[in-house]
């Protein structure tokens, strides 16, 4: 069964800081999921992954993740990606604690 294509964003972890980052339309990296650039076709997704993996000395473990558009901005779909935008559930640490 072919899986329905969902919009994709590219994400990884910052090499120095370790925190979660997303690839932007400007070809840079952001801490905010809503600022990520969205690939809307499989071809765009392939291009996006290619572009995002060109920063081996800045970002590691780059992969594509499913996204959905909420008010025109990308939001995570899978619970793992939702946790990555927030931080752990047992303490108010990580992204949820950052302004």
């Amino acid at each position: 069964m072919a899986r329905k294509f969902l919009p994709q964003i590219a994400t990884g972890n910052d090499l120095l800081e370790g925190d979660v980052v997303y690839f932007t339309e400007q070809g840079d990296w952001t801490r905010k999921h809503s600022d990520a650039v969205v690939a809307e076709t499989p071809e765009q997704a392939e291009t996006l992954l290619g572009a995002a993996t060109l920063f081996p000395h800045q970002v590691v473990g780059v992969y594509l993740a499913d996204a959905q558009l909420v008010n025109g901005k990308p939001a995570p779909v899978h619970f793992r990606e939702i946790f990555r935008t927030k931080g752990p559930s047992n303490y108010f640490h990580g992204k949820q604690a950052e302004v």
Partner: protein
Amino acid sequence: MYSYSNFDAAFVRDRVKEFRGQVERRLDGSLTEDEFKPLRLMNGLYLQLHAYMLRVAIPYGTLNGAQMRQLAHIADKWDKGYGHLTTRQNIQFNWPKLKDVPDILDALADVSMHAIQTSGNCIRNVTADHFAGAAADEIEDPRPTAELIRQWSTDHPEFAYLPRKFKVAVTGAPNDRAVTKAHDIGLRMVRNKAGEPGYEVVIGGGLGRTPMIGKVVRDFLPRADLLAYLEAILQVYNLSGRRDNKYKARIKILVHETGLEELKARIEETFARNQTLLEPVDAGVVARINASFAPPEWDRRAVPDIPHLDAGFRSFLDTNIAAHKQSDYAIVTVSTKPIGGTPGDVTSEQMRVLADLAERYSHDELRISHEQNVILPHVHRADLAVIYGRLREAGLHTANIGLVSDIIACPGMDYCALATARSIPVAQKISEAFSDLQAQHDIGDLKIKISGCINACGHHHVGHIGILGLDRAGVENYQITLGGDGTETAAIGERTGPGFAYDEIVPAIERIVNAYLDIRESAEEAFLDTYRRVGAEPFKAVLYPESNKANAA
């Protein structure tokens, strides 16, 4: 306790310097991420879900007050004011930055600590009975053996790039508190008919995707042959273990696929050759190690009668105290599992309290157990009341050791990059559901263990009740196993059936416990005994009432 020789101290400093250089070479492009990753892992540094994580080695779970105080300092200076005790008797910091890690390692070296070989496909930090040198049931102290193995396995040039990680555990007591049968090598200290000391050697145990109870490869190994025999096992494993599939690379799979007898023959052949080729271990080194584990000078104060125990202290004495070799001493287990808390988490403030208590009342010794608790191994009974008072002030007095809320839980998807579901909130909710300590005492001995993925860091396979969190079509789902046992009567738990959703798992556990209370023969029959008597069916009936009805119809 073992204290560093000049060689140990210089070695650890050299490794910190080396890692500092490796970080620089990663940043300047000399090392690719693929090349750097195993190097940082061998220095305890993971890249997790939200941040890096540093796993600090606590060899066989033993540390002193100054070391614990330094861990508190590291938690405050470079992390978020707490540490997480692991099922491998280590401590993890969840929020370090890559650039700070060499400085953290230097701070560890200041107190004779390090993070070497706490990860990677090498011989990992050796574990042992957390009551070593103190337990009343101990035949032989496992720590000198564990220390010898630590020295032998550290930076071993032949065994740093094994097919997969390799874990060794040692116990010197008939009651196995070190889960030795779930390790790549488990060593049980025994004596032969002539009364000579040696080891029963078990290989191929492990949890994870393919849980296996270890098998005896040698009934009796004379003590002097230990390192040559370990070298033989490791050499056979390094050369013949599978490298084509990470999930089939542990020695348990080699044992399974080759057969114990064939593998044993290869090990014995290599060992016979090694015996003539390897130089014997220097007697001076062995003597120095043995001397460092001599018992402390026992305090011979009288044990006072305490006429009026308050209820809290009485239940603490009931559950958190174990019998010591010296009748006027006790082993105190400090629970890191307050109701609703994160199992294994200790704040820097609590670390300092524990360091103080160790220095004042426990001959400057602390232990970390694989059950994620902290132990004061040598406490004079006259000091128990004052220790309880200090623990209560620090929120470390929960009287639940061995009870339903003394839960093992891995970090799960709140922290771990490998996790498929969360573990911590499940543990928190179960402990809240059974918050009444009196009711917990009535339920009695019950070990719940939770893993957030198939790798089983939470030891769910050997929990009386095991919980495994999985990702089922994008939703967290929890499978239950029953009847697991991590002791000398080790057994892998059996799956009950389909899993439960995140909001259904706690009620499911409550149904199991209630069913146990209904069917146990007496309050003395522990959960595991009841399970062994009646089997899984009565528990399945309460877990899956729907299918029950369907069958009856």
